[in-house]
């Protein structure tokens, strides 16, 4: 990763964090809100494959953890697993369709929220599974559909396709 790649990744992470912490956190339905930081990990896996997706997801999660009251490192763990999983699951897909990123984003966000709730419950976060998961799924999953296109575009700019090797990727499919 070059210095300019690192700068682009930092810019995208900071912009999405600012949008999440100021605007998206304020959109609350039943106590839940959209989760763009989780979506960053999904978009990274979709755009850049499992390897870089895991790294970017880890960074996004760790950054989100700095502002969350939940156990530190939990979002980082979910982020790297989600980035890796999304990269693996979408590796063979043809990325020409505009509707693919929203569908991937919705499915992966739902998986990520469930993973977060299960790991949170294991770590003693009371109510993560019992009361918080359903509102989070109802609000964050449709929101992921809406936010998928801009987030995938931003992550596509931050993580351009590598020129050679097995990690080469076909791009976002968004024109």
């Amino acid at each position, binding site marked *: 990763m070059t210095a300019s790649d690192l700068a682009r990744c930092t810019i995208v992470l900071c912009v999405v964090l600012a949008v999440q912490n100021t605007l998206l956190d304020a959109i609350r339905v039943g106590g839940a809100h959209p989760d763009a930081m989780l979506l960053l990990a999904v978009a990274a896996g979709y755009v850049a494959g499992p390897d870089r997706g895991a790294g970017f997801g880890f960074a996004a999660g760790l950054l989100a953890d700095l502002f*969350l009251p939940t156990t530190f490192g939990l979002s980082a763990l979910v982020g790297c697993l989600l980035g890796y999983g999304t990269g693996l699951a979408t590796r063979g897909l043809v990325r020409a369709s505009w509707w693919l990123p929203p569908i991937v984003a919705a499915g992966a966000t739902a998986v990520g929220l469930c993973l977060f709730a299960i790991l949170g419950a294991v770590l003693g976060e009371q109510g993560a599974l019992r009361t918080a998961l359903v509102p989070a799924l109802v609000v964050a999953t449709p929101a992921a559909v809406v936010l998928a296109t801009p987030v995938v575009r931003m992550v596509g700019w931050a993580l351009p396709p590598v020129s050679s090797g097995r990690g080469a990727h076909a791009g976002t499919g968004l024109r």
Partner: protein
Amino acid sequence: MARTRRPRRPRLTIGLLVLASITIITLDYRGDAHGAISSLKSAASDAFSPVQRGVDAVTHPIGSFLAGAVHGGQLEEENAKLRAEVGTLQQQQLSGPATANALRSIDALNHLPWTAGIPTVTAQVIALNPSNFAATIELDVGRRSGVAVGMPVTGGAGLVGQVIATSASACTVQLITDAASAVGVRFGPSSAALAQVDGTGAGKALTVAYIDPGTVLHKGEVLTTSGLSDAAFPPLIPVARITRYSSTPSSTEESVTAAPVADLEQLDYVDVMQWPPPG
């Protein structure tokens, strides 16, 4: 023959990242790196709070304008109600000092701290529920303003929650609706009965535990902080109103739900009580 560079193996990357995450989680969970993680969170919060305040300053008037346009009629009605309440309060104020003196004397006899005498720091809410899995708010005051972990936070007419983390210029408050929140309360004609109000998640009803079956309860009855020794809150702060209660012959306690007295969905300004919990 040209040799191609061997690509990095994704399994190694994910393995290292998972290991790093688990290490961080373990350090935080066991409290071994609590100081370092708190400092890191505090620095991040301080660095980010000007952005949060700036965006809030821009978006808040827009939100208020839109809310005003949509709820114009309702606001007029609320204004009329508030004017009536101001009249009632002015009336009560005239007879207030004598009553307050009497209550102060009684509390002094019981060695209870007097809630009205506790200094407070007024704060603005700059973020609501940053996590989908915890009911918390962020305030624009921190250690620099004398705010410390454990201090109670009140807003509107009742208890909002308790400070759980601070930075120099901001703090995080766990709301009483958070699933990890438990507040000791008292109720009844002589406020002698004790119970515990538990949160069940943001925007959800509170549950009240440890009430014996057959206890006389009333809908709308206000539960106040118990103020027992070692309690996390000073006494007599209104916490919740009973909304529903029932019991079955085989149950060992009443099934009681309650609603917070403070409107936790419409918090704008709150007071942080500079009352550190004992111990």
